[in-house]
């Protein structure tokens, strides 16, 4: 039977196993929306802004491992998705965005709601397509899913002109596609793996540093086995949290600009660094000239271009984390050389001394709520088992520091692009995929208003998200940098004229609560978490002057970390002198 392009599009999604699509209708997508109306396999979630659709699909993808799917119209529909697509691209999240386009006959004529979708999204997609022939439609959608989910995952845009969605042809969805120019490497080279394991076993002061690749590559069990087999310290990037259980003794915390003192010092002092699924981001490495000065670097990544991009790797291994780690485990077990127990003992003693400094320490008094305290309580009350999404800024760092993730896919944040406004819509995707789970959004009064309209979507689809608004009336991270590096000139970082968040939440049909005293934090969180039905917007009035410590300032090395405010002040004075 012949189907229209619109019906084919939706049938493809159903046959691909797509459960939810996040979208917003408009002229060029109307045939597709009509096709949606005719079926029940694919459920559509109507967001309130296309950016929200992409973040929701992104949250769905991050929490499930399945691709997130978005449907929007042409012109502003697609330009509104760009921030969300770029967010997914930077963090390698599998996503397929289907956009309606003006009819083929008027493409290039500045038609109403026309934009060059392929051109606009090109720099921030893994790949994109403009479908010019209905005969290629199903195959193109299959290719989009294949490209989005294999190798290093990423977003793929499929732009479909309106006339193509009206034409008819026989429907056939291919089981697989072969793309001659796209054959990602899966297995690591045996020789390279052998070399890597030899170097690992010869180490006296090893560190295993892993990133989002462990989560994306479903390699957390293998990583845990390898780390425990070796007894080596393991640190995770912001994107990699949950890749190794945070409560395990071999975990030395997150590394980087606001990571633990012990992880950064261990990076500085290590003699062998095993990096897996991490890309040596500048927020992780600090000054490259001072990075890991004594280390032989082994870098495992599925993306060859990630290797030796920022830091040269002596032993590169291109391959999927899961497969490579498995082969490493076999090789370690088979090897006659065992980890150097004496050297390791001394190395752990050194690390434990750094650890004893307790670099995340803060003082909670009876008067003002410390943002760290709220996250710590959330962790305690949810037993570490909640899904936590965040926006971008101080609250994001506090969430990463104080919520101990023992499982992968629980920590959902925009690490690469740093997109404010990500947290709430991402939580919608997470909650849809995990109906019975506690999903918390740790946010700030700056970020939350960037996609606040999605509170409406949450009501429509009964999403009982717990919003923790750490409200310090400042763009906290901006204010922190201005305090440290701009002689306290707080240029445009004070959030004036804020809404009454309690009334705002109520007007959207949710529960709004304001919490002003440290003593009320726990009860408020408990009430919110125990209510399985309703969205709670908790407006925590927090300390305006709190900063994120410890900190590696820009241009500094791992060993030049500031632990306390006094040290930063001293540093600042030196810089100013």
């Amino acid at each position, binding site marked *: 039977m012949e189907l229209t392009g619109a019906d084919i599009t939706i049938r493809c999604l159903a046959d691909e196993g797509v459960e939810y699509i996040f979208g917003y209708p408009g002229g060029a997508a109307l045939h597709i929306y009509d096709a949606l109306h005719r079926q029940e396999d694919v459920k559509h979630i109507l967001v309130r802004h296309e950016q929200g659709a992409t973040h929701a699909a992104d949250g769905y993808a991050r929490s499930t491992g399945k691709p997130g799917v978005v449907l929007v119209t042409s012109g502003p529909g697609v330009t509104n998705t760009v921030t969300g697509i770029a967010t997914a691209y930077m963090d390698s999240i599998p996503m397929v965005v289907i956009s309606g386009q003006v009819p083929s006959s008027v493409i290039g004529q500045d038609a109403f709601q026309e934009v060059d979708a392929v051109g606009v999204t*090109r720099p921030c997609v*893994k*790949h994109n397509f403009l479908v010019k022939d209905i005969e290629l439609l199903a195959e193109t959608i299959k290719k989009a899913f294949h*490209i989005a989910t294999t190798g290093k995952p990423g977003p793929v845009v499929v732009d479909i002109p309106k006339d193509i969605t009206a034409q008819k042809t026989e429907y056939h969805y291919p089981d697989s596609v072969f793309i*001659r*120019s*796209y054959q990602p490497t899966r297995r690591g080279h045996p020789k390279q793996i052998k070399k890597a394991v030899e170097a690992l076993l010869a180490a006296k002061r090893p560190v295993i540093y892993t990133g989002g690749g462990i989560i994306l590559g479903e390699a957390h069990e293998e990583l845990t086995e390898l780390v425990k087999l070796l007894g080596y310290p393991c640190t995770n990037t912001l994107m990699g949290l949950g890749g190794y259980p945070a409560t395990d003794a071999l975990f030395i915390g997150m590394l980087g600009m606001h990571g633990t003192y012990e992880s950064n010092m261990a990076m500085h002092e290590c003699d062998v660094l095993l990096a897996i699924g991490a890309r040596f981001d500048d927020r992780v490495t600090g000054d490259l000239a001072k990075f890991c000065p004594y280390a032989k670097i082994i870098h495992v990544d599925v993306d*060859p271009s990630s290797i*030796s991009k920022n830091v040269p790797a002596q032993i590169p291994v291109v391959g999927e984390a899961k497969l490579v780690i498995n082969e490493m485990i076999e090789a370690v077990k088979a090897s006659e050389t065992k980890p150097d127990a004496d050297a390791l003992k001394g190395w752990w003693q050194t690390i434990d001394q750094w650890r004893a400094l307790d670099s995340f320490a803060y003082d909670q008094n009876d008067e003002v709520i410390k943002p760290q305290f709220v996250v710590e309580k959330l962790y305690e009350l949810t037993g570490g088992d909640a899904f936590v999404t965040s926006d971008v800024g101080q609250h994001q760092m506090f969430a990463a520091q104080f919520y101990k993730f023992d499982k992968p896919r629980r920590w959902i944040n925009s690490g690469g692009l740093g997109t404010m406004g990500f947290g709430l819509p991402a939580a919608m995707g997470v909650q849809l995929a995990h109906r019975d789970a506690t999903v918390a959004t740790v946010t700030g009064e700056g970020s939350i208003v960037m996609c606040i309209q999605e509170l409406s979507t949450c009501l429509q689809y009964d999403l009982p998200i717990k919003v923790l608004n750490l409200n310090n009336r400042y763009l906290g991270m901006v204010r922190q940098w201005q305090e440290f590096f701009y002689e306290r000139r707080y240029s445009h970082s004070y959030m004036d004229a804020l809404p009454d968040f309690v009334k705002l939440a109520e007007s959207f049909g949710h529960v709004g609560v304001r919490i002003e005293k440290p003593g009320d934090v726990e009860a408020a969180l408990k009430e919110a978490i125990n209510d399985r039905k309703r969205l709670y917007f908790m407006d925590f009035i927090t300390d305006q002057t709190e900063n994120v410590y410890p900190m590696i300032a820009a241009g500094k090395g791992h060993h030049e970390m500031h632990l306390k405010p006094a040290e930063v002040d001293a540093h600042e004075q030196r810089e100013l002198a």
Partner: protein
Amino acid sequence: MRHVISILMENEPGTLSRISGLFSARGFNIESLIVAPTEDNTLSRMTLVTSGSDSVIEQITKQLNKLIEVVKLQDLTENRFIEREMMLIKVKAQDNSSREEMKRLSDIFRGRIIDVTDTVYTIELTGNSSKIDSFLEALGDKNIIEVVRTGVSGIARGNRALKI
């Protein structure tokens, strides 16, 4: 260092903009770029001249390979190779002495005069880029009216071939 990179890519609209977009987005440098279909009409072949340190060139080849539509590539500069560029040039040929001088220079560089008027010669010249540069230098700015160069194309010497 200067590198000549040959790229086999899908002959599809948009591939060229992906490659040029990659270069501008990542701050890589393009000295010249030419592209045309091959004997297999599903494939185009691009020859791209760029320069940079070894690590920059490594990133360039890796990033190019990462593009979905790039089928295969070869850094010709890693082995012996032949490069050719073609130039069409209009020069002033207004009086006897300048007409003679232009003809003589063209012959020395094995150029061909392919169009003649009473004031202008149009010369076709093929060679590697440095030969073409030398010819331009020999002519001198004041004699040149218009120059068009194709950019470099290249192929490996011997049995090596870039094919799928």
